[in-house]
């Protein structure tokens, strides 16, 4: 899909800037396409026959400091990780689990899964993958001594047993709807059993089974991948090589893309995407993502301990303006779950407290017995541009309703300390990467010890529903349960989602077949090819 109308090289520089400004910002709000249309549009470049060969240089603002398969939690890493690490299953573009290193699996009972491993899968070091490696890899993540952030996703696993060289049995503590999805999670990845000695070897070298292997890695700057010729999915990947290059300043990404030094770019900031999307020499993709900016409240701290005040805050916020300003208009509003989780997300019009109503907000403040200006501290984390932008709009919005907002900016270390200790004040956050509502809600809202209820909502009814959603296997029945939960969350907004930014990519027109994945993971590069 090319969104371009003018070729700026035919124009004078100043005209170009003017046009870009007007088209980019004036029309932004009206230009929002429905996410479903974008989806189909984004698959368009796939037309044609894939060709083997070619290399791509992919630019983005940041790259990870380490490529550890089970420890590294940075989103910028996890997006790229599955190009060289794989799991028993992967979650496909429609968020359904599919075979990957397991050729197939049997569900002997709701708590017993047998995985039949694909034969002849080789690691990048030449070793053949077997049941030992699988058992070792998942147990490594489950072991608290490893310190993996993904441990919580695997707590339902009671034991992993090797049946034979190519068969593994997972026994669960209780029936869990998200088991398959969780073992495909972002902290997992099958590694050779003998690859880990001190536990630090894999921070800068990767030994996976994925379609590419890591040839060079410079922390924060560069990842050079090359095609893994012995990849089990014969014929793939199409690219011979793939270089990820970090350029912290996104305006230089634009320049480098235009100068042909980069073939493909992912933008964090919509402004720069808007600047290039008028270029017909490039293809542009924007896709809804499972990622959203949110204002989380504190259920046990005044004034947000009062549900009326929580509702008043939700009603004061102009989410349309936040999407336009902080999200550059390149995203979608959301109720409780982003539209990219299409099956699960309830649309705005079915949920209460979604639109600005200052009159009602003032009434609620009055009913709570508070007299404006009501002091309210909102915490913000250093270094997250979308949060910094959103909180500034929110502060101004809330002032109109009678709140006196103080923005307290803290370091991420302070944030995580208070967040885990369940002491955080109202906080700006960005959540994402989930492929199932259980992942999005359970740990967040279920009271301890089973969940963390980070916002101290203490909602017994939601606890019950979350347990039910977890142990129910039927997808449609689960949908009903999560609809009920979403409605309750909207009625008493302990967490106020603001907008879901789109994933934004631009690439030269020779690049074909790239398909964006809902969580932003770059699975699509497995099928990407370069036109001759």
């Amino acid at each position, binding site marked *: 899909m090319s969104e371009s109308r003018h070729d700026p090289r035919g124009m004078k520089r100043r005209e170009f800037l003017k046009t870009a400004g007007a088209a980019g910002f004036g029309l932004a709000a009206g230009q929002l396409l429905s996410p479903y249309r974008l989806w189909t549009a984004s698959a368009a470049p796939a037309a044609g026959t894939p060709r083997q060969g070619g290399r791509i240089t992919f630019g983005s603002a940041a790259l990870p400091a380490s490529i550890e398969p089970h420890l590294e939690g940075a989103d910028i890493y996890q997006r790229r990780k599955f190009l060289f690490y794989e799991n028993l299953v992967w979650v496909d573009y429609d968020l359904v689990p599919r075979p990957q290193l397991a050729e197939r699996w049997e569900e002997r009972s709701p708590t017993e899964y047998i995985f039949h491993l694909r034969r002849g899968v080789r690691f990048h070091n030449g070793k053949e993958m077997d049941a030992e490696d699988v058992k070792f890899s998942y147990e490594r993540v489950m072991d608290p001594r490893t310190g993996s952030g993904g441990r919580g996703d695997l707590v339902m696993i009671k034991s992993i047993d090797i049946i034979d060289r190519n068969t593994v049995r997972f026994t669960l503590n209780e029936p869990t709807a998200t088991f398959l999805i969780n073992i495909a999670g972002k902290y997992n990845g099958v590694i050779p059993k003998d690859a880990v000695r001190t536990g630090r070897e894999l921070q800068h070298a990767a030994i996976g089974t994925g379609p590419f292997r890591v040839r060079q890695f410079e922390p924060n700057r560069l990842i050079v991948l090359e095609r893994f010729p012995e990849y089990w999915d014969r014929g793939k990947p199409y690219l011979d090589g793939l270089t990820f290059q970090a350029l912290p300043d996104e305006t230089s990404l634009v320049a480098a893309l235009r100068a042909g030094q980069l073939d493909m770019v992912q933008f964090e*900031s919509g402004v720069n995407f808007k600047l290039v999307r008028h270029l017909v020499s490039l293809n542009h993709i924007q896709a809804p993502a499972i990622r959203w900016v949110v204002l989380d409240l504190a259920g046990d701290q005044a004034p947000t301990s009062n549900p009326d005040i929580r509702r008043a805050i939700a009603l004061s916020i102009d989410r349309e303006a936040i999407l336009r300003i902080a999200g550059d208009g390149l995203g979608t509003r959301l109720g409780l779950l982003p539209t990219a989780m299409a099956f699960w997300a309830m649309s705005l019009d079915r949920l209460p407290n979604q639109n600005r109503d200052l009159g009602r907000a003032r009434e609620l403040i009055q009913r709570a017995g508070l007299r404006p200006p009501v002091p309210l501290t909102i915490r913000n984390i250093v270094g997250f541009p979308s949060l910094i932008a959103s909180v500034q709009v929110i502060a*101004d919005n809330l002032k109109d309703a009678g709140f006196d907002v103080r923005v307290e900016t803290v370091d991420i270390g302070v944030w995580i300390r208070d967040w885990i200790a369940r002491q955080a004040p109202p906080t700006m956050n960005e959540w994402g990467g989930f492929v199932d509502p259980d992942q999005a809600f359970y740990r967040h809202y279920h009271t301890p010890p089973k969940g963390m209820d980070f916002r101290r909502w203490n909602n017994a009814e939601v606890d019950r529903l979350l347990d039910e959603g977890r142990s129910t296997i039927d997808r449609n029945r689960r949908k009903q349960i999560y609809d009920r939960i979403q409605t309750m969350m909207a009625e008493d907004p302990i967490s106020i989602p603001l907008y879901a930014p789109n994933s934004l990519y631009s690439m030269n027109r020779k690049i074909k077949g790239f398909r964006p994945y809902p969580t932003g993971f770059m699975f699509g590069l497995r099928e990407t090819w370069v036109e001759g």
Partner: protein
Amino acid sequence: MRPVSRIWLSRLRRNPLFAAGTIIITTFVILGILAPYVAPYPPIAVDAMKMFQSPSRDHLFGTDRFGRDLLSRVIHGVRVSLGIAGLSIGIATAAGSVLGLLAGYFERGVDQTLGRVMDVFFAFPSVLLALGISAVLGAGVRTVVIAIAVVYTPLFFRVMRASVLAEKQLTYVEAAASIGAGSWKIMLRHILPNTLSPLIVQVAVSLSYAILIESALSYLGVGVQPPTPSWGTILNEGKEFLPISPWISLFPGLFIMLSVLGLNFVSDGLRDYLDPRLRT
């Protein structure tokens, strides 16, 4: 020893650059004090209908991504940026002078100990030290003030110590001591007043560096945090929009440059007068 105000007045007439510097700084200080009355709009009022407007009659400096009036933000930025510079250099002057006075007067152990400690701080390139401190304390106004104060305390320590040592050689101090004046009395009555002129020059120079360090820290994202409008913070926010609205990056930088220029003119003028060796 003539009062500072008299020196200032006499220099104003003779040195046009000094006069210009004084005018710039005075204007900025007044702007800072009167910011809420002078600025045409509130500095944090968001208006989604006015995003990224180029400079116009309504918005002389244009608007930013929030539709906020940049002129108003830059005017409020005077308060933040000059306020931080003034406060931090004030603290550094006080702390450095007291320590320098003690070291210079008592020499020996006190001097040795303080001197070693100050040497250690001196060993850091200033921006690196400030960066380290702000990493420790977390970004924010308070942090920037502390960081700059820590960076400049050793400097004032050295200046003060050197002039105390020089003063002590002079006869009137010996005379005061010989008539039995206590050491504190000698320090405060006799030595301190005579060390003021090098100190004043140093204060003026350091203020200009303080403005630069604050803006650099904020530009790098470890200094003052939005929505508080310091000049460096506004520049940091404008970085992303350079191709579409360069004015966001233009005006705050201009104000930083003007204020530093003003301070440099003032300190040059003072130095010419107070330190005749370099008189031009």
